[in-house]
């Protein structure tokens, strides 16, 4: 019984930790001051990137906050290969990334 209780507790803790946002909070107002570099591609309806291959730039307004943080960090750290996004994200601090993610997650 004790063992089962332990199991239940640990699964509850696990479920809670999964449910809580994995990344620190960002400030959308601060993010709005940083998005000048983003708008040229992500602010144009139907915009396509020309390099390294022509395909549509994704819509990011209203995207999930955690995903945006994961994506920007992966671009910055070179885990996700895209020269343009890597170059842009290289200059961003963790807090900048949180702020930008908060801005785009909120924008409607």
């Amino acid at each position: 019984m004790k063992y089962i209780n332990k199991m239940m507790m640990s699964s509850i803790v696990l479920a809670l930790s999964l449910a809580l946002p994995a990344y620190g909070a960002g400030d959308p107002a601060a993010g709005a001051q940083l998005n000048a570099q983003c708008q040229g591609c992500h602010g144009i309806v139907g915009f396509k990137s020309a390099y390294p291959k022509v395909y549509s730039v994704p819509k990011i307004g209203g995207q999930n906050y955690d995903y945006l943080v994961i994506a920007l960090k992966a671009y910055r750290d070179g885990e996700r290969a895209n020269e343009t996004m890597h170059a842009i994200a290289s200059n961003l601090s963790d807090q900048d990334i949180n702020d930008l993610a908060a801005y785009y997650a909120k924008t409607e």
Partner: protein
Amino acid sequence: MINVINRVVKAVRLEKELKRMFSKLGVVWLSVFMSLTFTAQAEDSSPRDASKIVGEVCVSCHGQDGNAMVMGAPKLGGQKADYLTKALMDYKTGIRNNAVMSAFSSTLSSAEMIAIGKYFESQTSTLTVPK
């Protein structure tokens, strides 16, 4: 005279040996070619229905309409189809690394990845292009 005969015999042997090698090579090439065509056929002849694949595989993280409830997973509903297809292909080929997505995309054919991209694009979207 004996030298000439020896040379002829050697040449004949060499020719036979070469022929044998080439015929073996031919078999190898044929089997490679056949396996390629058969895989291509297996891949494209029966692409599964995109909404069915989504319902079986993608749904748990991305939702049937692509409006993901799992925060770490992106919303896909209304996203650009070619971007989604590229993402799937990048996961399959290892350009993009994510254990879960690599595993799922490895089971998809090119035709299915294109169909899934179009399926999600056609769904109701909460994604926008903010100024």
